[in-house]
């Protein structure tokens, strides 16, 4: 599993691999929503269509020993970092093929071998954890860094504030990656936050910060690479606000009636998959047919993964009692 994850990670080294992964994320999320609608998924799911470039750009610039904390809206990050669609969808469906064998569900994916700590279902909780993870990694003489990925809404919670302050005072190499998709659940940012340019909040900690476009994976990877390198080489924190948008509702069957009129349409024009596809075509890296074929291939792969997941058994009863403490066995 860790071999596979690492090779999937490696596949992001080239841009076609990045396009492929973004499509895979899109199709996986679509399938999850469809299965939710069909009553196959219990509880909740938070999908990330529209934000795929963030996951892929980030994973492409990190080393496997760098650590990432992210949220319940973490399927894209997990897939980008190296988890497979089977592992993600298996977990979402509560099957033993899931990333942690089906005991976690949509909000709890994990694979430490590629740096993914268990994803966090509590808003803000992963932010201080990333600070500590960077310290933990560094303690072994390694120059790994950590990334805390979180939403715009999370910048209003105490853990955010405490983590940024601590990271700056202790000079910890963490990149605070705020995915500003303009909404926290059903509330638009202007109703919960005094301004939209959240990178400005980093000034309260004297932390270098910038806002970057989240829809163009090329420029985003370049920007993130710079920030990750800076954190790594200076051993100090950075703040990056990524301007992005979720093309879908917050969770479950939310149709997002609360959006501003026209807003979705504007953002759909900046679909990260289209942006990269078009550029690769324009640059002659792929032609339109090849892009189509790639899409069809990935779509098919994800469908096969759906089949595999559906056919995989639920976890055994013993899974309920495993991994509670070290003594509880495995």
């Amino acid at each position, binding site marked *: 599993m860790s071999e596979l994850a690492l090779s999937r990670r490696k596949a992001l080294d080239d841009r076609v691999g990045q396009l492929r992964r973004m499509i895979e994320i899109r199709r996986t999320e679509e399938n999850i929503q469809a299965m939710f609608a069909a009553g196959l998924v219990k509880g909740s799911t938070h999908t990330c269509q529209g934000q795929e470039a963030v996951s892929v750009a980030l994973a492409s610039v990190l080393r496997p020993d760098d650590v990432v904390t992210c949220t319940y809206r973490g399927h894209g990050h997990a897939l980008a970092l190296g988890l497979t669609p089977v592992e993600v969808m298996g977990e979402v469906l509560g099957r033993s093929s899931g990333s942690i064998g089906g*005991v976690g*569900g949509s*909000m709890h994916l994990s694979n430490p071998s590629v740096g993914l700590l268990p994803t966090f279902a509590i808003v803000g909780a992963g932010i201080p954890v990333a600070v500590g993870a960077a310290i933990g990694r560094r303690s072994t003489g390694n120059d790994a860094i950590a990334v805390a990925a979180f939403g715009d809404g999370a910048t209003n*919670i105490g853990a955010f504030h405490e983590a940024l302050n601590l990271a700056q005072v202790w000079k910890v190499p963490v990149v605070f990656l705020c995915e500003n998709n303009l909404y926290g659940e*059903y509330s638009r940012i202007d109703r919960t936050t005094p301004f939209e340019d959240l990178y400005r909040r980093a000034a309260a900690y004297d932390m270098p910060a910038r806002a970057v476009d989240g829809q163009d994976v090329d420029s985003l990877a370049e920007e993130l690479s710079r920030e990750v390198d800076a954190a790594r080489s200076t051993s100090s924190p950075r703040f990056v606000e990524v301007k992005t948008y979720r093309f879908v509702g917050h969770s479950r069957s939310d149709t997002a009636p609360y959006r501003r009129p026209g807003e979705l349409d504007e953002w759909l024009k900046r679909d990260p998959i289209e942006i990269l596809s078009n550029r690769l075509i324009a640059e002659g890296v792929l032609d339109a047919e090849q892009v189509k074929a790639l899409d069809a291939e990935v779509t098919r792969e994800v469908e096969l993964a759906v089949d595999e997941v559906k056919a995989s058994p639920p976890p055994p009863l013993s899974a309920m009692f495993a991994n509670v403490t070290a003594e509880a066995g495995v």
Partner: protein
Amino acid sequence: MLLRMNQAVALGIRDEMRADPSVVVWGEDVAEAGGVFKATVGLHEEFGDRVRDTPISEMGFLGAAVGAAATGLRPVVEIMFIEFLGVALDQLVTEAALFRYLSGGEISVPLVVRGSAGAGGGFGAQHSQTLERWMVGSPGLKLAVPSSSRTAYGLIRSAIRDDDPVVVLEPRALYGEREDIEPSDADIVPLGKAELVAEGSDVTLIGLGSTVATARAAAESADWSADVIDLLTLQPWDREAVFASVSKTGRLVIVEENPRAGGWGADIAAAVAEELFDDLVAPIVRVTTPDVPVPFAPELEEKFLPRAEEVVAQVNGLVDDKRSIGPWWERETVTV
């Protein structure tokens, strides 16, 4: 009318808001969206700014509610999933609950904290606990748990009227359950009073929230007969009702949706074992979840929760052999 429990909550709040202009409602997406679980639907439309969406800042808005309650308002705060109190508990148990005491009785904090609680919905380990134990044992605080639309309506009204901070833990699994009621002032459910929802003579079953139905189902399916008590308020719990029933039946099974360690039934079991020592003809049994995180996979989650068959098996043991058979995970061999 057929009311789902979330609708009953909204109706109860609405009726108190109509009666008392000092009642306000705050929480994440409680206003325009009517709440993630639709338990505040219609309130923003009727009461405007008295119903407010907050930033994602549980410590901030719960703390603000404490201050507002101390200065004349009656805030009803929604904590979407009760686990989120983990980022704000201080304001509830260390501030709100102690304000009356620490002001020499001059300040009341008529605050209501509503939180959805419990498993069964597939929300996973961080969104499925009941966590009564975070509140029980905080002097100054009251804690109620409805088991139906009627009791949800009645308890939220009592909670809002109460002059102390009251937590209402709403079993999330019951939000969609319907009951045919015409709620009115007569349906206000007093805090601190349990209800006897079935009568019998062989055993007393106590349920709370989601487990009231479990206890009832067990009682209905068995050949012994049971007093079934819906506890309704956990702090303070109704000693009179519990003691009266157990002194009659001589047997007690407590059905709890929480781990055995620190579960709410332990207090009651200990009190009954102490005070009715001579009346008990069999050991008191607690039917709880195992001491593990709430598992996501639907098959496991169902098995994890207290079930009527398990209650029946336990009572059978008490009635037949006057002994406790032990919880299912000790009887079944579960190899890890």
